[in-house]
């Protein structure tokens, strides 16, 4: 019910469910990048723009 995809930032393995949807955002548990599924066939990921909480100064 789940498969592995490779993170485009760190090449870590991401477990995703089989019913992945186009436009879905997945998070790489290794590097934390948010990746958008821009196409399913072939599976293509893009880094999603980051929405930041205010941790700077």
């Amino acid at each position, binding site marked *: 019910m789940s498969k592995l995809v490779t993170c485009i930032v760190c090449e870590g393995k991401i477990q995703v469910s089989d019913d992945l949807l186009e436009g879905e955002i997945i998070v790489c548990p290794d590097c934390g990048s948010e990746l958008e599924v821009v196409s399913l066939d072939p599976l293509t990921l893009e880094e999603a723009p980051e929405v930041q*909480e*205010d*941790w*700077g*100064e």
Partner: protein
Amino acid sequence: MYRAAVWGASGMAGGEVLRILAQHPSVEVACAVSNSKKGQFVWQVHPHLRANFSNLAFCNTDEGLSTAADIALLAVPHGTAVPIIESCLKKNMKVVDLSADVRLSSSKDYEAWYGHSHPNPELLSKAIYGLPELHRDDIRDAVLVSGVGCNASCCILGLYPLALMGLIEEARIEVRVGSSEAGASPTIGSHHPYRSRTLRVFEPFRHRHLAEILQELSLKESAVTLTMSAVEIVRGVQMLSHIRLSQKMSERDIWQIYRKAYAGNPFLQLCPAKPAHLRFPDPKLVTGSNNAMTGFALHEDGRRMLVVTAIDNLMKGAAGTAVQAANLMLGLDETEGLTMMPVYPV
């Protein structure tokens, strides 16, 4: 007695402007502008100022603009100062704007660093970068002066003697900042359980203040990185610059260069080389004062160098320098109202 309108008076930097003006011999507060606190007494927001401003209440923008004043000190957020500057100039007030709105002289640079075009590029060419140590004479004649970035002013003051001599081949700058730098509004990052005793590296290579540093020191971005860390202090900025010098130098040379550059600047102090524990300045030593202290060490190879500078971000990094510039613009002695001693230890 000159009269100053203080904008952003409910904020962190605005509160410090008020703290300074409370005892300024030649400038008094004409009004304290805050829209969100309008009608409240100033001491309800700044309780330490109660004895000095027992009856002063915040006014709103309209009241602020219709209050007569010789000069306006704007401690408002970046991006909100331009319309206030325009209105004040129109009313023939002089203006010191602590925000970043008119710090860069090139509108192209502004766009590159702030991500959108400047709403009134004419102001950029009119404004003087408000660091008296670099632009004293221009500030005297100016009607519009920018304030300084707190991190930027710390870095510029520490490095301009070397930069003037063209000695900086590469600079890896570490800046450590206190929590008051981020202003008076709480965020998740300023929440005490998380902010307390943090060593939070929040920028690896650059920060918007780098734009000012490059401009004022005439350096190229490829030669400089700026790493920012939040540390457990409230007030204070400390710069550590790891420099690669463009030529081999002796310690004696460096002393001459700094001594010459700092001469005549009442708030700049050079640290002794000995005893060793006083060689590099700790922001603890300048708390509450307008002083900037710099210390350095030259590696035995004559090319590597460490420069450390410390300021109080709310004073020399913001309100202090702003009042210093205002003094010059009003024809007063640069140091008026700014000679308070540092409080140490605290």
